[in-house]
């Protein structure tokens, strides 16, 4: 195998590693909230610097490959996509930290009502992250389009969660500080889904050379 191909494979592995780390902090941050596990929440916050460090490493590697190899065509699209999606992954990591921070605050407070929407959202969002990374590694399949469609489910759950909580707040204004934090958490998950959507769009660009951002996606593509 040519050295350049080895370098591209190594880059792929690093992106996969970053994707796994991000998926894990999303899972753990939501679990820390639901299981009211303070230690787990703190641990998520601590792990963020590992994600940041790896993001910078991937960036540096991409810049090096562009300078040294002057990539063209698929190689160029692969490397520029890697650079862009790591930014989204890193932002997801930050949002997981935000979830963990709110979890630490909410663990101190009484449980308003059982968590129903948030675990559902977390499950969808984790799947979105996993599938986008999978699509990036394997090249284009239907996966990125499915991921983009799943973003609507997350948006719907965010609205539903917000409506349920505002109804409670209207009845009992005393719980507003707690309820607002719960709306934040849904919002963080919704933002993570948006970043996963960005990645899915970049993967479609990588595979097809077509930028579909800010466009209506044709059915069945």
């Amino acid at each position, binding site marked *: 195998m*040519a050295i*350049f191909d080895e370098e591209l494979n190594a880059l792929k592995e690093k992106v996969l590693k970053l994707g796994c780390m991000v998926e894990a902090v999303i899972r753990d941050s939501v679990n820390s909230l639901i299981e009211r596990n303070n230690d787990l929440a703190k641990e998520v916050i601590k792990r963020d610097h590992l994600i940041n460090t790896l993001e910078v490493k991937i960036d540096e590697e991409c810049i090096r490959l562009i300078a040294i190899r*002057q*990539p*063209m*065509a*698929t*190689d*160029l*699209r692969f490397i520029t996509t890697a650079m862009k999606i790591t930014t989204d992954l890193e932002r997801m990591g930050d949002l997981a930290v935000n979830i963990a921070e709110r979890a630490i605050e909410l663990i101190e407070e009484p449980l308003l009502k059982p968590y129903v929407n948030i675990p559902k959202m977390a499950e969808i969002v984790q799947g979105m992250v996993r599938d986008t990374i999978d699509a990036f590694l394997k090249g284009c399949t239907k996966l990125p389009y499915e991921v983009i469609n799943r973003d609507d489910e997350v948006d719907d759950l965010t609205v539903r969660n917000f409506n349920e909580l505002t109804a409670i707040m209207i009845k009992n204004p005393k719980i507003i500080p707690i309820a607002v934090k719960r709306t934040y958490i849904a919002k963080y998950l919704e933002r993570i889904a948006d970043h996963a959507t960005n990645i899915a769009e970049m993967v479609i660009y990588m595979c*097809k*050379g*077509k930028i579909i951002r800010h466009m209506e996606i044709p059915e069945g593509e």
Partner: protein
Amino acid sequence: MSKVTIESLNLFYGDFHCLKNNNLSIEEKKITALIGPSGCGKSTLLRCLNRMNDFIESVRITGKVLIDDRDIYSRDINLIQLRKEVGMVFQRPNPFPLSVYDNVAYGPRVHGLFKTPKDTLKAVVVKSLSAVGLWEELKDRLDVSATNLTLEQQQRLCIARLLAVEPIILLMDEPCSALDPYATLKIEELFLNLKKSYTIVIVTHNMQQAARVSDYTAYMYLGELVEFGDTNTIFVNPKNKLTEEYITGRFG
């Protein structure tokens, strides 16, 4: 607008089928790059555009090359006029062992413009040298031998020599391969200036160069035109697998 149209062009060197049914449209006042591995036929195709292959024995050509709808392979074509209109620059600068002035004046003189009053000829020399950015550098050294110039200056001079006979199309066969990166960059800037007035076709092994200077790129392999398109598409998102393999260095 298309300046040159190549239609079903085939070229044989004896039994060897070198160009296979090439079809290509070359836009006016744009730069078209021909890329491909050694022996793919890109220089041969370039040389078809001013019938330079006619000099080679055993060459047989079928098909058409139209310049402004005029088939340059038709019987009534004036070859001297054709090569005046379609000039060529080669890999290695090849100035005549004459002075700078005489190199540029040579073309107008042999094309029967020698009766022009001397000041008019001088005006052509000044205009041509200015167009390639050599006038300021050499205006006080017009009598030195062209062979004493740097390679970059020599290549510019060769281009000026073409411009003096008022061509419409410039063919460049690896024009920068003898030049260092800085000189290459300067010549590339010159191309971008020249395309305002001329239609340029460039053969290059340097893919970065094709990507930098050309508006359109054609990829050739084993005598066939595999893919032709605007340069951005060819280098960012080529449609053909063979093009992809060549430009990403996974060829062969």
